[in-house]
């Protein structure tokens, strides 16, 4: 039984200025590729760590330090420029509000679409549909197009779908913050329950008290590199010292 997530020598480079025009590119080629067509920027470099099955790990760091980028690499939305990511089992992520939702479809249709994207079969979705809606507590709006949803309602539905896919690895970005107090508590209870069931969790949050309460371990990122790795309360203390 090895690690649930293995990240090795990860490097991710983004283009800062995007060029979608063939003309600009042709001019650049004609000028003998002088200069950079796009400005490049390393969002992550030389990031390595492992997460054991059943662990709850916090990713910490200031805005722009690369936390969301790392989650996206683990979920497979983007691919690394160098290094490798390996995961074991079904992965579900709550990385951005509204991810995997289509604005012109109703909440109901989006539950089906989102759950199918996360790998559920038609039958599984039908069986769990009522539970998903009940968990989200937005029964009343389930047939409304989601473009009329508030970000909190989005979160409710997305969280409900994601936890019902029974993920082995569950990735949660800062978005929990957009939920109201009672729903945040409900989410935290669910996260604890998933963790008790032996599932692996990776959580990003700026609520440091919550982190030291629910997480086993913390990984602190700064400018795209790992600065500290250790028990959650030590990671939080490390971060607080530099605040």
């Amino acid at each position: 039984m090895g690690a649930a997530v293995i990240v090795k020598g990860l490097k991710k480079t983004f283009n800062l200025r995007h060029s979608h025009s063939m003309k600009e590119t042709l001019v650049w080629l004609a000028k003998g590729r002088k200069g950079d067509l796009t400005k490049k920027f390393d969002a992550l470099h030389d990031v390595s760590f492992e997460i054991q099955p059943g662990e709850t790990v916090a990713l910490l760091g200031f805005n722009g330090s690369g936390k969301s980028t790392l989650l996206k690499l683990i979920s497979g939305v983007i691919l690394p420029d160098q290094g490798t990511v390996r995961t074991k089992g079904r992965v579900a992520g709550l990385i951005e509000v509204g991810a995997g939702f289509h604005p012109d479809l109703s909440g109901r249709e989006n539950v089906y679409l989102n759950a199918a994207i996360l790998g559920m079969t038609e039958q599984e979705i039908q069986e769990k549909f009522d539970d998903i809606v009940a968990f989200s507590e937005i029964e009343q709006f389930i047939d409304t197009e989601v473009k009329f949803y508030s970000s909190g309602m989005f979160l409710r539905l997305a969280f409900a779908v994601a936890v019902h896919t029974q993920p082995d690895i569950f990735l949660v970005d800062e978005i929990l913050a957009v939920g109201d107090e009672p729903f945040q508590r409900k989410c935290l209870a669910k996260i604890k329950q998933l963790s008790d069931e032996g599932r692996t969790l990776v959580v990003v949050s700026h609520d440091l008290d919550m982190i030291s309460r629910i997480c086993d371990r913390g990984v602190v990122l700064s400018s795209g590199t790992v600065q500290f790795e250790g028990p959650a309360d030590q990671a939080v203390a490390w971060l607080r010292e530099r605040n």
Partner: protein
Amino acid sequence: MSNSTDTYAVPGVGAGLLDVYRRRYLLKLIVRKELRVRYRGSVLGLAWSYVKPLVQYVVLFFALGIVLRVGDQIPNYALYMFSGVIVINFFSEAFSNATRSIVSNAALVKKIYLPRELFPVASVWVAAVHFLPQLIVLLAAALLSGWHPDIMQLFGALLGFVIVAVTATGLGLLAGAINVFFRDAENIVDMLMMIVTWTSPVLYDWTMIRRLAAPWVLTIYQLNPITVAVELFHWAFWYPTVNQPVELPPHLLVTGFIGLGMAALFLVIGQIVFRRLEGHFAQEV
């Protein structure tokens, strides 16, 4: 999706078109989503796709028959043209929507992983859904003209449909991937579609090309998979209604299989290029 927990997966790397087949249910939901979004707020909805081909048929019948008198050269000209026109309609809708599919689904592509080949393939399915009403109008018109096809001709129609669907999928994967990086691709495709419409024997017949061009030009002309499909449709839907002698292009089934081979080649090239570029879709789209 396998739920095995003892092998490592590489996130974000799928099996391409094979994944589309494995995840048919998701494909179905995406096709349904495209149709829902397309007909949102429309009273007639999908019924529009019946109205449009009917009008197109009537226009062809009057404009070309009565005004331009094409009927003097091609018997049952309206049926001749309509059977070719619906092939072109299918191809251009499938190809141009597949070209736009990754960019227009940016909301999904950027934020969550799913096999991205699903989008071009779904575009081709949506075009096929719109093709069905056109086929029904064509069948009705053919039956009114005393259509009595044999089994080989029906097979020819099926072959023609498959050629167009595979070609559109292959070229759609190619152009759809390129379009993420250079939005010029969609304009180039629109221009290509105009060329294809006029270079296929839709509004004239192949003997007119034979009169104008050298034999080798004619051969190349006839190897274009879309031309192949158009001729197969003529053979299936128009030829059985004609009771005077007309000259069909030679070796229709042989060119049909060559066309299928070309379509398969486009599919392979499209898939390879798509896989090469896919890794950067989420961050560039």
